């Protein structure tokens, strides 16, 4: 069936009747496609399918907010109800991207306000969202129900107050690890802005809002929100207050406990008895996910025993507990799939985890003392123990001071289902602790034995060889994170030429130069971004890339001294874009 008509714009003549019928039929079928990969594939079949898919896509996911302009996204997907937007590159979390770089939500919300009257959901990650943006959001979308902000900044309690007050249908307000402005003069009592009529909240997370909340208002809100399933409070909520909230909401499935700390001598209130708190937990029969413990008082930890057996997810990564304090808890958590913890539990604590959590799927071990010189409480033996006890492990993030190839190899053999392997040996360029060799063989074993691996972060002393291994065996790797590694451009050449699925590449402080970078020219259009900082790039090489690939935006980001006209490139961030260089680049960014 020849399709001669050009252009996707509806402004053209409508397709003939028979084609229209076909498109309607396809639309009905495509409604069922959920995964964006399937949708993307369907949209490439022919123009008719492209149009039909565009009409039926409900959630628009944009992995890099600068890859496409708001206007273009809105023009194509006219029926979207949900937007997921990601902004800054991940290394911004570690202060490598100067503030003011970009990723502002303003142009997006301004474009959506007139175009998406039925917008229900927005999820933003690493974007700058102002109070004014939140106000516009709250005023423009009467059906709005779900706001999730992750690692964003630029807003404060006044913005939250507007959301609370004006979004009558709000079901989800999840604020996760945002940098919330807390100017003392401007703190708004946002919790009390939820009107009496708002009673359909299902999820409320505000751990990152670092100012006290009006507890009476919070309690009242919890009482009237009978659909509330997820509640994560901040550390200004004491353990007494937590107990009251839990009693008002025994139907909770996920709980962020706030401080888990009593306020000494609070207005004549008696000390909370552990047994009383324990009975409250016993009454929370639906709890499967527990987090918080921001200022944990150890005596109260046993209160959670009644729910341990049901727990699927436990986040103790803000609790400074020892192995002995962990054991009574973890020995009851047989159903745990996800466990986040501090390295204060040591190898001993990890042994305990390995003994009880046979279904463990995701483990994250964070460092209490995040410096290169600290003692380090977890080591290679903890890693081996986990690998032996938890064969179903799919995702691990492990911070340590020292490691051995043998341990990493053991994990590669014991946990073949690994999808995410992120090992951070905090001492830069540390070799194998026992043999003194580079860590090449360990990571090599991971890519060789874990065939499903899609995300890898390497560390320790590494030569070009590890990148050769990754290129030869890591064919499914999509995200690669490199720091202080490699010897020559060969490393970069290996991965850019050998990893066909590579989409996100972030490199810092590694001796890779222009030759390595240029070897990726054939692949950059397939990638979401490449970040390289403190490498050996020069502006000549970066300009060459920009010249060869007109749809690539090549940003050179200056040091704070903004010496952008020199030869050496301190920070490079490149990404494909349908709409050319952005217009909001600050003075310390030069787009080649």
């Amino acid at each position, binding site marked *: 069936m020849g399709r001669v008509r050009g252009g996707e714009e509806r402004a053209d003549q409508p397709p003939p009747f028979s084609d229209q019928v076909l498109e309607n039929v396809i639309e009905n079928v495509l409604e069922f496609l959920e995964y964006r990969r399937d949708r993307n594939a369907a949209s490439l079949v022919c123009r008719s399918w492209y149009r039909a898919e565009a009409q039926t896509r409900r959630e628009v996911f944009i992995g890099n907010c600068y890859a496409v302009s708001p206007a273009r996204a809105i023009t194509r997907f006219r029926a979207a109800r949900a937007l997921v937007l990601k902004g800054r590159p991940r*290394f911004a*979390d*570690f*202060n*490598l991207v*100067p*503030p*003011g770089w970009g990723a502002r939500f303003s142009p997006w919300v301004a474009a959506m306000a007139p175009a998406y009257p039925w917008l229900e959901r927005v999820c933003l990650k690493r974007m700058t969202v102002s109070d004014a943006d939140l106000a516009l959001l709250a005023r423009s979308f009467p059906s709005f129900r779900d706001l999730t902000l992750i*690692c964003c900044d630029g807003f404060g309690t006044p913005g939250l107050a507007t959301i609370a007050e004006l979004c009558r249908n709000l079901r989800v307000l999840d604020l996760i*690890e945002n*940098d919330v402005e807390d100017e003392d003069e401007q703190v708004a009592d946002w919790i009390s802005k939820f009107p009496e009529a708002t009673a359909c909240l299902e999820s409320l997370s505000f751990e*990152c809002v670092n100012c006290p909340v009006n507890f009476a208002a919070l309690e009242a809100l919890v009482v009237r929100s009978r659909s509330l399933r997820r509640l994560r409070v901040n550390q200004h909520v004491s353990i007494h207050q937590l107990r009251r909230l839990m009693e008002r909401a025994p139907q909770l499935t996920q709980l962020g406990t706030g401080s888990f700390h009593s306020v000494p001598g609070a207005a004549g209130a008696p000390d909370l008895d552990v047994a009383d708190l324990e009975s409250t937990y016993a009454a929370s029969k639906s709890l499967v996910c527990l987090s918080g413990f*921001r*200022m944990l008082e150890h005596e109260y930890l046993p209160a959670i025993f009644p729910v341990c057996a049901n727990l699927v997810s436990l986040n103790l*990564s*803000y609790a*400074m507990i020892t192995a002995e304090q962990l054991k009574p808890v973890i020995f009851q958590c047989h159903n745990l799939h996800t466990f986040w913890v501090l390295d204060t539990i040591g190898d001993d604590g990890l042994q305990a985890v390995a003994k009880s959590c046979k279904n463990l799927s995701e483990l994250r071990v*964070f*460092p*209490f003392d*995040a*410096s*290169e010189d600290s003692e380090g409480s977890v080591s290679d033996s903890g890693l081996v123990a986990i690998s032996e006890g938890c064969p179903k492990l799919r995702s691990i993030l492990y*911070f340590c001071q*020292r490691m051995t190839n043998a341990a990493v190899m053991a994990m590669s053999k014991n946990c073949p289902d690994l999808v995410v392997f992120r090992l*951070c040996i*905090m*001492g*830069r*360029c*540390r*070799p194998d*602790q*026992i*043999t*003194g060799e*580079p860590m090449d063989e360990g990571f090599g074993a991971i890519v060789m034995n874990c065939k499903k691996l899609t995300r890898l972060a390497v560390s320790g*002393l590494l030569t070009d060889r590890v990148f050769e291994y990754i290129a030869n065996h890591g064919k499914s790797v999509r995200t690669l994170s490199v*720091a*202080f*590694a490699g010897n020559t451009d060969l490393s970069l050449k290996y991965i850019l030429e050998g990893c066909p699925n590579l989409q996100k590449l972030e490199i*810092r*402080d590694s*001796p890779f130069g222009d030759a390595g970078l240029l070897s990726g020219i054939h692949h950059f259009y397939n990638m979401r971004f490449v970040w390289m900082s403190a490498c*050996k790039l*020069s502006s000549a090489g970066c300009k060459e890339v920009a010249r060869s690939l007109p749809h690539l935006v090549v940003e050179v980001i*200056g*040091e*704070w*001294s*903004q*010496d952008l*006209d*020199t*030869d*050496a490139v*301190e920070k490079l961030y490149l990404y494909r874009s349908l709409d050319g260089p952005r217009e909001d680049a*600050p*003075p*310390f960014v030069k787009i080649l």
Partner: protein
Amino acid sequence: MEAVAASYVKDTELRLGLPGSEAPEKPAMRGGKRALPEDDEAAFCKSSPEDASGLRSVGAAPVAKAQVVGWPPIRTYRKNNFQARKAETGADASGLFVKVSMDGAPYLRKIDLKLYQGYKELKEALDSMFKSFSQGESSRKEGCNGSEYAITYEDKDGDLMLVGDVPWEMFTSSCKRLRIMKASEARGLESKQ
């Protein structure tokens, strides 16, 4: 006491003259040096077999010991959480990440006061941070020398103070935010001392 105060003030004088003027050269910022020379590579990541004990090799000691931005890769959110808790036991540490604003500049910056050993380093960092913005300004004004701006800070009580008057430790524990303003505006503060 006054001589000390005067030296603090001189230290914190924000010099925004052109490169090559009185301000000392800061090698790390000069472009030509940024391409890593061979010996830096050695400092980065060489480890001789004798280091089997896992000791970090320190080819060029200053490089290895210097605090590296963003390493280990822990989010600021998480780091701040523990900073506050460690400080609970010790001195009140309410001045860690502070905002820095410069009158007229469109962008705020945030800096970690713990990264600096004293006023001189802080001044250098601020100098380089805002040079990009103010170089435009100073080139428009002919015949001006370096000291157009003064660094002030807002302390725990909300008072605006001139940076450099108090001992460094006292400053870091009480500074809530920094503000770089025109020297003329700051003159009122100076006379208070």
